[in-house]
């Protein structure tokens, strides 16, 4: 049961196509797991539909329809597609695309204390990374200059706000200083998206920051 959802602002920005790629990845991955947010997202799409309907028409080129039909017919006939069966791993399809597979395909790098991370390839407006936190281990306490989205894919963590388990997404803003701790048991795997470098409160993580790109 998912208890922590996306905000209206994130869903609207994603629907409007205004989010940096790393944030879009976090939103798309959460929506893949959460029908409630999928329904909210599609209602924001409906706002886009109304705005499109209301657009004053701009005249098309004279041969536009013929050109489009030629485009359609020159393409190889497209087979009708059936969506693939849901995969069995822990990564929903959008995340699997970025990793190139499921959990076993992740190329982890140690960042200290048993915590591991993998940066995913997105445009530079924001950063997306996977985090691996062994059960019982804490991520160094940190604040945020911008927004940090943390989506749990396996296991669970707790911080000053609440408990977060698979499918839950935490939206941390500048005000939040928190120390997420993975629950005892299986490692906690998260997808985290940030639009500004994190602000660590102790010296060592701060010194490592440029090396780790976090």
């Amino acid at each position, binding site marked *: 049961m998912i208890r922590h959802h996306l905000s209206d602002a994130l869903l609207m920005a*994603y629907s409007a196509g*205004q989010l940096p790629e790393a944030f879009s990845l976090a939103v798309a991955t959460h929506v893949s797991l959460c029908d*409630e947010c999928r329904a909210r997202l599609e209602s924001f799409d*409906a*706002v886009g539909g*109304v705005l499109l309907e209301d657009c004053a028409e701009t005249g098309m080129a004279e041969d536009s329809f013929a050109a489009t039909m030629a485009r*359609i017919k020159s393409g190889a006939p497209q087979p009708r597609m059936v969506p693939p069966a849901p995969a069995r791993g822990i990564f929903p399809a959008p995340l699997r695309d*970025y990793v190139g597979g499921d959990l076993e395909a992740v190329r982890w790098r140690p960042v200290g204390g048993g915590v591991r991370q993998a940066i995913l390839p997105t445009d530079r407006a924001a950063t997306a990374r996977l985090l691996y936190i062994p059960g019982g281990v804490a991520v160094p306490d940190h604040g945020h200059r911008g927004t940090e989205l943390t989506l749990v894919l396996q296991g669970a963590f707790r911080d000053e706000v609440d408990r977060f388990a698979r499918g839950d997404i935490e939206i941390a803003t500048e005000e939040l200083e928190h120390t997420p701790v993975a629950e005892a048991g299986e490692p906690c795997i998260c997808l985290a998206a940030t639009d500004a470098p994190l602000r660590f409160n102790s010296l060592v993580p701060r010194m490592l920051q440029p090396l780790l790109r976090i």
Partner: protein
Amino acid sequence: MLQFVRAGPITESLRIPPALGRLAGTEEGSVHVSDGSAPQGEWVEQMLRLARHGDESAFAELFGHFAPRVKAFLMKSGATASLAEECAQDVMATVWHKAALFDPARASVATWIFTIARNRRIDALRKSRRPEPEDLPWGPEPEPDQVDALVLQQETEKLGEALALLPDNQRELIEKAYFGDLSHGEIAKITGLPLGTIKSRIRLALEKLRQTMT
């Protein structure tokens, strides 16, 4: 992995419920009849003719209505006239190819075309990627429920009416979010969109789809 199926059974299963061809009809007392000013429901019939038969005249009608709006949408978003023309043709070609994926119980035709136009805009103007949520492991229901489809189309119309009643500055902000470049922070200031009812309908449609599949 994509799976391909023969065209036969799909074509067969997309049989159009007769009532969808009369969306402005008044079989039910509670049915709100459009005055024709925002005939978003009407396009469902053309979409289903296109999906079922590859009906070129249905496509021509859709093209006549939506291509000039898609072009206007792209130009408002900063595309030159020639790029917008090119992309609008692309968008309409995608409408042709993906017609079978349109689900009238989840979106109006304008909403569905908006999502295609938005994705094309992100490719063409922002040269960025927008990962999509995982497809539901099934397409639209073979026999979309007529009442569900009708109600969703009406909810979209009502949403349009409600948006038209918003104060000018609020409405301008929404347009800027969908057409222009509004940051996620600025988008957070947009509140009070009347999305509760349409969201509930879409949520219901998703639930029904999941039930059909289990």
